[in-house]
């Protein structure tokens, strides 16, 4: 299990990286944390001819709030989210989610942006991005594009990024203090990829749900919000039957994938339960 040979570049500047990316768009891969790419290379399931390692580009290593966004640089590791990094509801949500992301040594290396670019349907950060309407800043020599998370995830392991683009930054909207979040995930073991997970963010006005976002990951080929379920929540109070109805709507809306760990039917069951538990977590 040794990787196939490749040429290695470790640019120190963004310009240099983008030039390399333009030159090797077809056979090159970006290497950030490498915690998904390198295992695939060791199995020779991935065999890029050129590896462009962006770990030495200091300009991509940042994390902080600005203009209502949490700005996450391409080199921000999962580990950074174990402690609160943003004000408001994200202060508790992100550490809660980070706890589910693989294991410590993986969190030390793996990056938030890399996780989005890899687009594993069961990756936690992709669900966060999709549910909270993140923006993805894609850079290439041709310029900068800001991509909404909605539509970014095309299908499993496929995104709207062009081959010559890299994710320079991901922006998560800072939620106001009146938003409340809940996250629930089911996996076989601690740290495994989700068989199903759900993220709920709701805003209450006078004890009634004034805004709702409910996303599901690990169930279909990509994480997504379930608008039909969100609609059922609007204007309602947080009664158990309301949450259950929303959870049922989630289950009904999904077309789950199957693998050895979960049939479609089982994933649908799990999605229903995770959706309800995420809502309960948000509204507890």
């Amino acid at each position, binding site marked *: *299990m*040794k*990787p*196939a*040979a490749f040429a290695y570049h470790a640019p120190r500047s963004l310009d240099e990286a983008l030039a390399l990316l333009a030159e090797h768009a077809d056979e090159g891969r970006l290497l950030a944390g490498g915690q998904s790419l390198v295992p695939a290379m060791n*199995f*020779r399931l991935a065999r890029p001819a050129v590896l462009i390692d962006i770990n030495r580009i200091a300009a991509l290593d940042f994390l902080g709030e600005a203009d209502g966004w949490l700005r996450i640089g391409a080199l921000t590791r999962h580990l950074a989210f174990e402690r609160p990094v943003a004000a408001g509801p994200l202060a508790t949500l992100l550490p809660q989610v980070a706890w589910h992301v693989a294991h410590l040594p993986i969190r030390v290396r793996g990056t938030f942006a890399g996780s989005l670019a890899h687009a594993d349907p069961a990756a936690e950060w992709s669900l966060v991005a999709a549910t909270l309407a993140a923006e993805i800043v894609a850079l290439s020599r041709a310029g900068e594009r800001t991509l909404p998370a909605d539509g970014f995830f095309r299908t499993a392991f496929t995104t709207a990024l062009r081959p010559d683009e890299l994710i320079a930054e991901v922006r998560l909207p800072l939620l106001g203090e009146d938003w409340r979040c809940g996250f629930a995930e*089911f996996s*076989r*073991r*601690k*740290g*495994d*990829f989700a068989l199903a997970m759900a993220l709920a963010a709701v805003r209450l006005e006078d004890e009634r749900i004034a805004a709702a976002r409910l996303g599901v990951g690990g169930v279909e080929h990509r994480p997504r919000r379930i608008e039909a379920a969100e609609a059922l929540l609007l204007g309602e109070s947080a009664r158990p039957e309301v949450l259950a109805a929303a959870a049922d709507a989630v289950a009904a809306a999904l077309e789950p994938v199957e693998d*050895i*760990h*979960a*049939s479609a*039917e*089982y994933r649908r*069951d*799990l999605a229903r*339960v995770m959706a309800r538990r995420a809502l309960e977590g948000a509204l507890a």
Partner: protein
Amino acid sequence: MSWIGRPIPRLEDPALLTGQGRFVADTAQGAAAVRFVRSPVARGRILGIDVPNDLPAGVRVITAADLADVRPIRPLLHRPDYVAIGQPALAATCVRHVGEPVAAVVAPGAAQAEDVAELVFVEIEPEEAVADLDLALAAGAPQVHAEAPGNLLIDGRLATEGFDAAVAAAAHLVEIEVCSRRQSAMPLEARAAHASFERATGRVTLTCSVQMPHMLRTAIADHLGMRESDLRVVAPDVGGAFGQKMSLFPEYLVLVWLARRLRGAVAWIEDRRENLTASAHGRDQRHRVRGAFAADGRLLALEGDLRCNVGAYSSYPVTCGVEPLMALAELPGPYDVRHYRARARGVATNTCMMAPYRGVSRPVITLAMERLMDCAADRLGLDPVELRRRNLVRAFPYRSATGLLFDEGSYLDCLERAAATVDLPAFRARQAAARAAGRFLGVGFCVFSERTGYGTPAFAARGMEIAPGYERVEIAMDPSGNLEARIGASPHGQGLATTLAQLIADELGVEPAQIRIAHGDTDRTPYGWGTFASRSLVIAGGACKLAAAALRDRLARLAGHLLEADPGDVEFADGRARVRGTDLSIELATLARQAYHQSHRFGDAHDPYLAAHATYDPAGTFSNATHAAIVEVDPETGHVAIERFLVVEDAGVLINPMIADGQVHGGVAQGIAHALFEEIVYDDEGNILTASLADYLPPTCAEIPPIEVQHLVTESDATLTRAKGLGEGGAIGAPAAVLNAIADALKPFGVGVFEMPATPQRLRALIRTAQAGEVP
């Protein structure tokens, strides 16, 4: 003061703790790397093998055509119901499972060997394959071996006289079928071998991650047609084995063949994908059992239809009979049942071969018996503990319906202690309260006896051509008074270098640290069988005790001579030989120096070499235990959380209780893995779907609960040390305890839990089906 019974830290640890362990891969510097080209399909005819003709310097590829002189691996059982089958070192005409080696690449480095292996094209015409046990038994199933019609490799039967009458007299017949999905022992170090040719002598040293180095030496010499004295097998530090490293594998034949042919050194370090795909699997079994119970709950008769999927080949030397025949002989377990009828079949499929895995069949037959007990208790309206109480063997020695002789044990006491420790009435109250609140707790018990420390009679009874069993120990004191014991057993994590030293230290009045245990090197150690089957402490330990006692007698004579005392009055303690009732004594180091360097002082009969040896070949002993699990099942997800896990066990005298507990812990963790997590999955075409640790799921410390261990000590005279084996018990008892607990938790749903691993998906499916049935 005795060293026996003391939890001293292990003598083998400092090297392992500081990175100075020597595992095979650590010794392979400078060797050429070997990579195997493996079959991508489960069954097919090899039409051709296309080797690139512009291989770089130092690279070569060999195929079956090169190995014409190598005998296929074809282990034998002398039984009419056994069909011997052959396994080629490299597949020649056909392949029988995914991962079967077809060619071998030798290259200067591992990455390059893998590069070349990708270029070797094996043209195979695929044929219909069969991976599932019952499908392989069905009429018209593809035949894995032409010589084994119906895919039956072994078909053992047993029946006691009067069986039918006993069944007819029963008040209750309870029948269940249990299923165990396939497991991998998955030692953290995969298989590995380094074969090095020595030009000066023409010998090959095979450094290999194995449990049976001496057997491997004989087997390789036999199969390659070489002189056994031209081969040295070394088992260095071995990173776990659990049965997976007992067998003669084709890869090792190829390695030694290559070292001889290339007159150099070659190494093969198995990767994890190969290990999960092509080493060995186990416990792929389905058993239908039927218990005939009297009205008072006594088990009158037991019937079993025991089926084991043994894969495409027969593991050498234990053969594919090891699972079915063990199941056949040991199904009744710790229960006093006089009537027994069973059939045990080993079934060939197009899957990786079966080899022993910790407990072999006992985790599954124990599941069958213990689920049967719980189901029968339900039927009879009895408490499960009470039903067991009424059926456990109480009088020893006890001769079982299958002829096994149980030595003294504490079957009932372990059960009572476990039931008292979990405080059953208090638990039932808590369970009821939890159910009312929509939470589902359950308790499960598992009682079993574990046949351990058995010598040649047990293996010979199985009809094995190669019948293991005895162990020999050679012990010597050097002129400085330090000791070396050379053993045929081959420990790999069991701490034998410590426990054997404790045993010897007590015989000779020295400290364990003065005793070096030499093992795992066929040039240095007496012929022996290695470490497996919960045997080494019992058998090598008994031999150590005998050899040390013999050496002690010699030392007593020498001390008596020097101190002018009767040797019978000499005793040994604190590194000295003392004359009882006097202040006369001599330091052992001085005595040893005198024996070697002043040998003329001891007369003509004196042999200056201070050594003794002994061989021990016991019939065997049964340790016993009760496991208890308390679980909570989330019916919405099927998730099982183990809240508490208790082991009350009796392995006789514990030489080192800390090491004994460690064996129990590790076994229980593997048992929980079996019950809840691990499963090798094949699709219908025989493709393996669990070829990485992303899909094969050993539990982490987050899934394994604290394990409470209590020991009872029955001093049986079945062994010289009064110690019984306990290496496998944890893995044997835990699965049934966990499944019984799950079944107890899910009782309100009216579902039966008979399959393991009881994954969340499976449990959820059971619950979903049950709930759907309730809808009007």
